């Protein structure tokens, strides 16, 4: 959502797609113009659905042959039945929701697995920018000024781990991304929180 460079979007989406089993039922919450759903359909043959808040995004998705409804992650997930998807994905969206905890709670109700990717506000460059300039950081993954960013709930890898703990979500896999590289962390700690520009988590209910 907040990403603006194509290469970053690609590596992030590929990382998410790699976590999804072939032929699975997938709900992509905040699916934008359907790049991830299309990737999942073409590479993983998933039965994919999407929810997108912007009508332009929805229309683009449906024109691409994707099953997408206009809706708000904060309000409209309540209609979905329990366990109706194998995966519910929140790709680069959690930081733009009004109530991330409730959204995550709905996701774990609807899906057997939850995938969340987000820009890591704990990355060393962001910390350094704030320390040295005394201004809200603007980076490749967080390109907007503070007053016009859709990202109202930014968090670090460590913050996100705390939320997972509070929501009784266990980590099946954690992928860290920086530049063009990605690596798996079995127990993401201080180093991961400093090095990762983005993080992708595959979660399940404890």
């Amino acid at each position, binding site marked *: 959502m907040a990403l603006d460079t194509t290469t970053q979007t690609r590596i992030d989406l590929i990382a998410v797609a790699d976590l999804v089993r072939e032929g699975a039922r997938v709900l992509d919450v905040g699916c934008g113009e359907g790049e991830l759903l299309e990737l999942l359909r073409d590479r993983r043959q998933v039965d994919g*659905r999407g929810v997108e808040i912007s009508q332009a995004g929805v229309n683009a998705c449906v*024109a691409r042959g*994707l099953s997408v409804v206009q809706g708000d992650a904060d309000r409209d997930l309540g209609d979905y039945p329990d366990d109706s998807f194998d995966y519910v994905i929140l790709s680069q969206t959690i930081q733009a929701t009004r109530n991330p905890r409730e959204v995550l709670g709905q996701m774990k109700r609807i899906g057997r697995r939850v995938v969340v990717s987000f820009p890591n506000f704990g990355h060393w460059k962001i910390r350094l920018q704030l320390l040295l300039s005394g201004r809200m950081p603007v980076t490749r993954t967080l390109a907007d000024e503070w007053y016009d960013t859709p990202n109202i709930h930014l968090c670090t890898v460590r913050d996100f781990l705390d939320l997972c703990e509070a929501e009784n979500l266990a980590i099946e896999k954690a992928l860290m991304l920086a530049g063009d590289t990605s690596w798996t962390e079995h127990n993401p700690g201080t180093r991961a929180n400093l090095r990762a520009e983005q993080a992708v988590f595959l979660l399940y209910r404890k």
Partner: protein
Amino acid sequence: MSAAAGAHTGATPQDPRLEAPEARLETVTFGPDKPLRLDSGENLSPVTLAYNTYGELNADKSNAVLICHALTMDQHVANAHPQTDKPGWWLRMVGPGRTIDTNRFFVICPNVIGGCQGSSGPTETNPKTGNPYGLDFPVITIADMVRSQAMLLDHLGVETLFCAIGGSMGGMQVLEWASAYPERVFSAIPMATAARHSAQNIAFHEVGRQAIMADPDWHGGTYLDHGTRPTKGLSVARMAAHITYLSETALFRKFDRNLQDRDTLTYDFGAPDFQIESYLRHQGMTFVDRFDANSYLYITRAMDYFDLAAAHGGVLANAFKGTKTRFCVVSFTSDWHYPTAYNKQIVHALIAAGANVSFVEIETDKGHDAFLLDEPVMDDTLAGFIASAARQRGLV
């Protein structure tokens, strides 16, 4: 007529360069061995359906598209109307190479029962009396219309529709189709519609019905026996309904308070002062040439009775339980007759039923009639949905 006039008016602005596909104008009558069971408990027999087809049914019989028409339209979806010679009401959507491509699909468009273009309805002859049915025609429902269409598909040898599509009352039939015959509908496109008719919609219909019945020429519905027609009443009904098809913005854009062929107010009640008055009078006058007053009573009644949730224990999602049909629900921002909220109720129910559903809201100021008009975003999304469904169906 410009954008303010949709095909609900029978005066759709069509591109004159659009070629009409070759149409077959057909009729089928089901005899006493195949009565139509009605929701009212009555059986209707014989039952006649007038329908048009375009394109060819493929060997697998998997490429049939059913177009369900709205209140005042008919089976002449893509050919010139035999009575008025006006182009088909959805010619911009249906034809060779168009969104509903008659080179690829076998398109079927029946006139609803209760209608007045050849299907069984109050203008047809009652076999018991030899006179027009009038109000002796049984009250019919949307489900009855759909049941008769299922008989038509049996007659045509079409087991499963590739797609059922329609706007307004056509959308109600599409929803009823998907609910009553889920295994016979591969994909469904309900547009600008509702799963239950609202009090406001019933209210507008009641105004129309009362206008018709207040016309002395209506004669308790037996006007055909008297050699008259309640044209004044039907015309007023049409004028009232027509307002609901347009948005306030569109009325402002086209008419505002402009005066009709004059510079000053008349301080009189004869000739119309305002252009909007003249426009509505024209819509009423032309409508009565092609529509029957009793049909208007019956079809508006059918719409008012429509409540898909009530028919499924009050829970709309139950109407679609276990459905495998792919849905694309379409609404329009300035449609206050069947607003986005009504269409979203359908979407919410489909999601709760675990259905495969897409939902688009088209940004437009053309009101309810927008589904009939030039809306490029609507065309793109429908084309994308239909192409994707066709791939799934193996129609490439």
